[in-house]
């Protein structure tokens, strides 16, 4: 009997093609679409945030029918609310800028969906992520960047456990987006040429601040002061959840030179701004670190390339684990602003060595 694989299908092109490819390779494919986002409140835009209309999973169903494999819709809204949205809102309240996609992969796809896969007798789970998994000579699976550098999504996957990787398949890792689209057209998918959404799936109209306010209610941050590095008040702001470190627009302050958000002091309700040069960091401290390469554990300094945002090109840096969960990353030269809450991911060549969530910037040069 062929191995059973649970394929997470969004209804989009990528995961539909991923499922079709696995079916062609002879896997016993079970397609699963996840209901994750809550119903948006009336009056907000639909965006991608309504995951319970008949049409949403239409392409997924179409592939399942055409390729003759079972397909189900699972309701993970409560887990998603507790583990992803709860984290998202909490991070904004703490003055950080979260990356819910990383959290969703870790908490939903590689945890809830993994146990669902076991419940369904599936050995593997698969997604339409652009990333590769290679088996090393030592038997350890290695998470690698996708062949299509422009589409590479390995950044979002760093928090996947080592043993998870050995039971995960990314069928699109060696394909380009154009190849995937061509495949989708051959499969007759309606969405083959649909432009991709960059929005967060559960935030209607991409309005984070309004979403945080609706979710946090009385815990919503109060208006406060905008100050410079010396603590002088330059203006007022409507609440720290409106801001992201590195942000320039929307500060509402007239100034001779452009000002950027340098720090968010959530406890004091203060937004600290400064000139661009004041933002540049020498490094960062990351928490909740997941090491995919066990060699990195221990206090040894290791040269790595670090990505501090999804679209960041990467910087040469030195990595040192402070303890089991925290890492210190020193950039080889002065780096850009780092945004607490965002993921930072360590690479060696195409291999993902691990990653964590940015806890704070390091401003001063190494001793």
């Amino acid at each position: 009997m062929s191995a059973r694989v649970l394929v997470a299908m969004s209804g989009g092109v990528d995961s539909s093609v991923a499922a079709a490819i696995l079916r062609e390779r002879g896997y016993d494919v079970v397609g699963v679409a996840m209901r994750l986002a809550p119903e948006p409140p009336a009056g907000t835009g639909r965006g991608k945030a309504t995951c319970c209309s008949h049409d949403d999973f239409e392409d997924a169903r179409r592939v399942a029918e055409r390729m003759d494999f079972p397909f189900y819709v699972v309701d993970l809204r409560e887990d998603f609310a507790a583990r992803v949205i709860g984290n998202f809102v909490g991070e904004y309240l703490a003055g950080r800028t979260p990356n819910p996609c990383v959290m969703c992969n870790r908490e939903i796809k590689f945890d809830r969906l993994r146990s669902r896969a076991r419940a369904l007798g599936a050995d593997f789970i698969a997604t339409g992520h652009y990333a590769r998994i290679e088996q090393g000579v030592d038997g350890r699976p290695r998470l690698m960047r996708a062949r299509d550098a422009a589409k590479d999504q390995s950044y979002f996957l760093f928090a996947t456990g080592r043993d998870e990787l050995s039971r995960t398949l990314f069928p699109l890792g060696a394909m380009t987006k154009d190849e995937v689209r061509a495949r989708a057209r051959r499969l007759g998918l309606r969405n083959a040429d649909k432009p991709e959404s960059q929005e967060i799936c559960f935030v209607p109209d991409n309005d984070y601040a309004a979403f945080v306010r609706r979710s946090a209610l009385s815990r919503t941050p109060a208006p406060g002061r905008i100050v410079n590095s010396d603590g002088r008040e330059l203006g007022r702001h409507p609440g720290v959840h409106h801001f992201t470190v590195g942000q320039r627009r929307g500060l509402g302050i007239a100034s001779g030179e452009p000002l950027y958000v340098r720090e968010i002091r959530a406890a004091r309700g203060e937004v600290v701004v400064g000139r661009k040069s004041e933002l540049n960091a020498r490094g960062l401290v990351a928490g909740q670190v997941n090491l995919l390469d066990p060699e990195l554990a221990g206090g040894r300094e290791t040269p790595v390339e670090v990505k501090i945002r999804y679209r960041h090109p990467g910087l040469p840096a030195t990595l040192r684990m402070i303890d089991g969960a925290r890492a210190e990353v020193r950039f080889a030269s002065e780096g850009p602003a780092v945004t607490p809450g965002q993921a930072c991911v360590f690479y060696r060549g195409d291999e993902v060595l691990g990653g964590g969530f940015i806890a704070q910037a390091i401003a001063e040069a190494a001793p």
Partner: protein
Amino acid sequence: MRVYLDHNAGSPVRPSARRAISRCLDGERGNPASAHRSGQSARRMLERAREQVAELVGARPETIVFTSGGSESNNLAIFGAARASGSRRRIVSSALEHSSILAPLAALEARGFEVVLLAPDRDGRIDAATAAAAIDDSVALVTLGLVNAEVGVIQSVAPIADAARRARALFHLDAAQAVGRIPVNVQSLGCDLLTMSAHKIGGPSGIGALYAAAEARIAPLILGGPQERGMRAGTPNLPGAAGFGVAAEEVARTLHTESSRAASLADALLESLFAAIPGLELNGPRRDRVPHTLNLTFPGVLGESLMMALDLEGVEVSMGSACAAGAVEPSHVLIAMGRGRAAARSSLRISLGWPTTDEEISFAAATIAQVWRRVAAAEPDAERRDAGVAEAPR
């Protein structure tokens, strides 16, 4: 092997009904409303079906209105009664009902009707005295399911029928899940309106009927012709009616043997599952229930997971209702019975039907026990996970 145990959602068409539909399609020509001989022949076929359906529930043929199914029959009964209700503005029903009753009631509530939804006890029984107390001369309609689709409880409706008669309120029974499972007789039930659905008894989908007593005043929903005594305009679904009629006739003839067969199969399945699954619970009463329907709470698993896993291994059962996207929702009936959300999320409905065999039941019993063990080990306590937005886990 694939074992279909979701007959409360719809049973396969009986061979006799299939033959009747086929004969009708082969020979059908003309409209039952036409005066020529083809029309007359079509009309005879339709009236024969009406007699067969009427016979099943002890009604006169002219009281049977063919509809597109149980949902339309319920809508016709409720909106039809509301439109003809005069000054009476109150409707009595229960929280257990099918959505084709609850949704029309919600719509009427929005138009100013007062809707009283009776709460059942833990076994899903409506207390007849409470119901009777809610019925006075302000009530236009009492509408209740005779047999509940989710848990199979049979309501004792005689005192409710009496109360409705005394208050001169219309009494509607949704018997879609009762017909073919228990003897149903409109006279002894004392109802004015009664819903039937063909595909629940091995007829085709897309056809049902509403029994409407000659003196029951309801207004039609579909206007535009004299068909069905003016209660439903439009050329009737003749092949559907032919299949429905023959299925009704077969059910009337075999009800006793089919019911006792279903009862012994269900008992065997239950016995085997109780032995294999510690903590398994049967929802609904021990007595006063149809044997075909088993609603079970499986300890330590999500019903959604168990249902999917069973489907992959060839056993088809159901859970609650499905949303537009196809995800399953916990049963509103179990929640109304006070079973709690966690229990409702761990519950599945297994429903037997006319083609169910011994062999299928043995296969299902073994598969369910085996799959339950796997699912419980893979997702421990998944059904008890807290709802709502939690604080950031940092």
